[in-house]
C-alpha cells in the first residue's frame, strides 16, 4: 500500500491516467470502500464490527486489452499488486485488495462483439454483466443457458476466473464447458489468444489453464462462448423422499441412465424443512428433489416421464409439475434478503464435488465434523450441478450468534472451514466446485494438490515473476504484510 502522502502515489497515478484517462482512475473514498468488500463473510463482518478494511490505492477502469496491458506494465515497473475485479460478488475474497495496489475493475469492457449463428457462439468482453449478456443474446434469438444465482451481479470474466456455474449446468455445463477461446493479457502485458476451438490435439489446453486462475496468471479480456437455441419446451417435476439417501439414489440413477436433465436439485431434510418451506411454501418432512428437462417438446416429455418412473421406484410423494415449476420460478429468490443468510449470522457455503460413490460420504463427513466440533452451528445442504459421474454438494453452516469480537469470529469461522474441507478431501471431495479458492481457501491448496501444487507454483513464477497478479490468493505467495 502506498501512503497517499508519498509523492510516489502521484507518480503512479499519473502513469495510470496516461493509460486509461483521468476519469477512469478513481481514488475517492466511496469507490475504495465499494472495492474493499466483496461477498465474502470475513470483510462483511470486519466492516460490520467497525474494523478498517484494506482499501486499494487506485481503482482503474480499462476499456481495452491494450489498456489492461499498459496497466500491468506500470504495475510491473513499480511492483504494485493488481487485483482484477468483475462484479465483486465472489464469496471467496478473491477480489479483495488485501495489500492495496491497483484494483482493475473490468466493467467498462462490456461489449458483445459478435454473435455467430452458424457456429452458435458469441464473443464478448469479459467485464460484461452476465444478465446484460444474456439479454443481448436473447434479443438475437438465442440464450447462453448460463443462469447462476449471481446473474445480476457477476461478470463473464468473474465466472471464467472462478470456474463458475449456473442452474442449468447439468445439461449446458459449467463455464469451463461453455468457453471456446480466450483473449488474455499476461502479467508482463502481452496480449495472447488461446486456440480458437476447445477440442484439439495441438498440445495442452491453455484455455483451461486460465479458467479458474482467479486473476493470478493474467487478465482474461475477451471470451467466445457457446450459445444455444431457445428451447421449445422446459418442464420440471418435484418429488419428496423420506430420506436424502433415497433421493440420492433416484437422482444418481437419472444421471447414470444417461438421461439429460438440464437441472437436478436435491435438498437434504434440514434444508427442505427450512428453506424450501420458507421460499416455496412447501411445508413437508423429507428430502425435496426437483429436476427439469428442456429441448424439443416430445423429447422433453419422454425424458421427464423416464425420470419420474425412476423416482417412483422408491418410496416417494409425487409433488407434481407445479411444485417443480415453483422452484424454477423462485430459483433466485433464495439469494435475496431476507431469504439469504445474513449478519449477525456467521455462514459459509462449503461447496464441494465428488463421485456418486463418495458424495454421501463427503456429506456425512462434513456434517459430522461440524456437529461434533461446533455444536452452535447448524448444517444444511443441497446437491446441485449433477454430472454423469457425481454431483456437487452445496453445504452450508450457520451460526446464529457468532462471537462479538471480530478476531474471535473469524478464527472460529476459519476453523469450521478447515475442518469441514479437510473432512471432505479425505472422503474424495475437493475444496470447491464453483465459487473458487480466493483468500478463503488458499491455505488448503497445497494439501489438496500435494506435490502437484509445485506445477502450479512454477507456472505462476514463470508468468508472473514479480508476483503482481492478485498476490496472496489461491495459495500463491503473498506480498508480505
Amino acid at each position, binding site marked *: 500500500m502506498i501512503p497517499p502522502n508519498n509523492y510516489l502515489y502521484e507518480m503512479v497515478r499519473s502513469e495510470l491516467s496516461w493509460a486509461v484517462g483521468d476519469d477512469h482512475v478513481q481514488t475517492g473514498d*466511496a469507490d475504495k470502500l465499494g472495492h474493499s468488500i466483496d461477498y465474502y463473510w470475513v470483510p462483511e463482518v470486519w466492516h460490520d464490527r467497525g474494523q478498517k478494511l484494506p482499501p486499494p490505492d487506485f481503482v482503474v477502469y480499462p476499456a481495452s486489452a491494450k489498456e489492461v496491458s499498459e496497466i500491468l506494465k506500470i504495475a510491473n515497473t513499480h511492483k504494485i499488486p493488481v487485483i482484477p475485479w468483475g462484479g465483486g460478488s465472489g464469496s471467496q475474497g478473491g477480489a479483495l485488495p488485501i495489500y492495496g495496489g491497483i484494483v482493475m475493475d473490468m466493467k467498462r469492457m462490456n461489449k458483445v462483439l459478435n454473435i455467430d449463428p452458424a457456429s452458435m457462439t458469441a464473443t464478448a468482453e469479459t467485464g460484461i454483466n452476465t444478465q446484460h449478456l444474456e439479454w443481448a443474446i436473447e434479443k438475437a434469438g438465442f440464450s447462453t443457458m448460463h443462469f447462476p444465482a449471481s446473474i445480476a451481479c457477476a461478470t463473464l470474466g468473474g465466472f471464467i476466473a472462478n470456474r463458475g456455474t449456473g442452474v442449468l449446468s447439468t445439461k449446458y455445463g459449467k463455464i469451463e464447458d461453455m468457453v471456446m477461446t480466450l483473449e488474455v493479457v499476461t502479467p508482463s502485458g502481452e496480449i495472447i489468444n488461446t486456440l480458437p476451438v476447445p477440442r484439439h490435439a495441438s498440445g495442452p489446453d491453455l484455455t483451461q489453464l486460465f479458467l479458474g486462475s482467479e486473476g493470478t496468471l493474467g487478465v482474461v479480456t475477451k471470451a467466445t462462448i457457446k450459445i444455444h437455441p431457445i428451447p421449445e419446451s422446459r418442464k420440471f417435476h418435484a418429488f419428496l423422499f423420506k430420506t436424502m439417501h433415497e433421493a440420492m439414489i433416484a437422482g444418481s440413477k437419472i444421471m447414470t441412465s444417461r438421461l439429460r436433465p438440464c437441472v437436478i436439485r436435491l435438498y437434504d431434510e434440514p434444508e427442505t424443512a427450512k428453506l424450501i418451506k420458507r421460499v416455496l411454501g412447501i411445508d413437508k418432512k423429507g428430502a425435496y428433489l426437483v429436476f427439469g428437462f428442456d429441448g424439443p417438446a416430445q423429447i422433453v416429455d419422454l425424458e421427464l416421464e423416464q425420470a419420474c418412473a425412476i423416482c417412483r421406484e422408491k418410496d416417494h410423494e409425487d409433488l407434481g409439475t407445479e411444485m417443480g415449476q415453483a422452484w424454477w420460478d423462485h430459483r433466485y429468490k433464495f439469494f435475496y434478503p431476507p431469504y439469504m443468510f445474513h449478519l449477525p449470522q456467521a455462514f459459509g457455503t462449503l461447496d464441494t464435488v465428488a463421485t456418486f460413490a463418495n458424495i454421501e460420504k463427503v456429506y456425512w463427513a462434513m456434517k459430522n465434523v461440524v456437529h461434533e466440533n461446533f455444536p452452535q452451528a447448524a448444517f444444511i445442504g443441497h446437491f446441485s450441478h449433477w454430472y454423469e459421474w457425481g454431483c456437487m454438494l452445496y453445504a452450508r453452516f450457520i451460526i446464529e450468534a457468532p462471537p462479538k469480537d471480530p478476531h474471535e469470529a473469524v478464527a472460529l469461522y476459519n476453523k469450521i472451514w478447515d475442518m469441514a474441507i479437510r473432512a471432505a478431501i479425505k472422503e474424495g471431495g475437493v475444496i470447491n466446485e464453483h465459487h473458487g479458492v480466493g483468500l478463503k481457501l488458499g491455505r488448503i491448496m497445497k494439501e489438496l494438490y500435494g506435490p502437484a501444487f509445485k506445477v502450479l507454483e512454477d507456472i505462476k513464477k514463470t508468468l508472473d515473476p514479480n508476483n503482481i497478479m492478485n498476490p496472496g490468493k489461491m495459495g500463491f505467495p503473498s506480498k508480505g504484510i
Partner: protein
Amino acid sequence: MHMDKHQDVIAACRFCFMCRHLDPVGNVTFQESDTPRGRALILDTIRMKNESLRNRDFIATIYRSALSGANRYHCVSHYDEVGLVLAARKDIVEAGLAPENVKALTETLSRATFTVKGKGTTLYYGDHLELYPGCKIVSGGDPGKALEVLGFGDDSQKVFDRFRSAVVASKCTTLIVAEPSAYDFLKDKFDGIEVVHCSEHLLSGKWKAKPARKAFYLESDFLKNYDGNPAAPRELLARYGYTLTLFGTNNEESYSVGEGAVVFDELNPGLCEKLCRRVYDLAGNLKTALFITPSRYVKATLTKYNPQIRVMTLEEAVAQRKEQ
C-alpha cells in the same frame, strides 16, 4: 438521523448484489459506489461513524443517484433503497453539508409561484392545454418535488403550500397532471381534489382510428417504478395507432436518463450525458427511430445531448395524431 428509519434497508442492501445490473448510474460509471450496495455501504459507514457524513466524496455519491426505483421494483423484497438515499439527503441538508450546486439550484426552485388561468371545472398542470378543452391551467414551475428529492423538505413544503393555494383558489375538484414526477408528488397531497395522470383523462375522450406507427416507449421511472405501472399511457398510445416496441434488451432497466432525480441534469450534466449516450447507443438509427416518453424532462434531456433524436412526449404524440 432520518437514515435511522431505514436501518432495514441498510442491513439488506449493504452486502447484496442482486439488483446492481439495473442501477442506471452504475451502468455508466461502472463504479461500485454507484450501486444500491455501494450507497448502502457508505450510509452504513455513516451510521457507525456519524462524522463520515462530512465526507465530500460520500456526499457527492449520494447526490449522484438517479433514484430510478428500478432496483426497488426488481428486488423480491422491494427494499426501499431510494427512500434510504432520500433520507440521507435530508440528513446532509440538515447538517448544512449540501453541495454548493445543490444549494444554488434550491434557491431557484424555492422561488416558484403559481398562477391559474382560463375557465372550467377541471384544472390542468402541464404544457398542452389544447388537449383539455374546458379546463383551467395552473403554471409556475415545479410544485415541490424537486426540492423534496434534493433533501430540502421544509422548502418543498413552502412551495407546495403556494401550489395548493393556487389549486384551491381555482375551485376545481379535479387536477390533471402531465409530468410524472409532479403526478407522483401531488397524487396523495389533496383532500377533496382528485389528482389524475393526463393519460387517464385522455383515455376517457373520443378518438378516431389511426394508421399504425412504430415507436419505442421509454418508461417513466415514476409511473412504472413508483406509481404501480398504470396501463393508461400504453393504452392511450395504442388507441392513437402507436405500436410500441421494446427498447433495449429488456423491460427492467430504466432508460429515463435521471427522471427519478427530477433535476438530475441540472446537478450532474456530465453524468446525464452518459445516461443519454447509453440510450443513443442502444437505439440504433436515431434518425428513423421514434421515441415516446411521458416525461418532458426526458424529452428535453435526450434532445439536449443529441438534437437528432426524435422524441415526443405522450401528450405531443396524442396531439399530433389528433391533428391528422
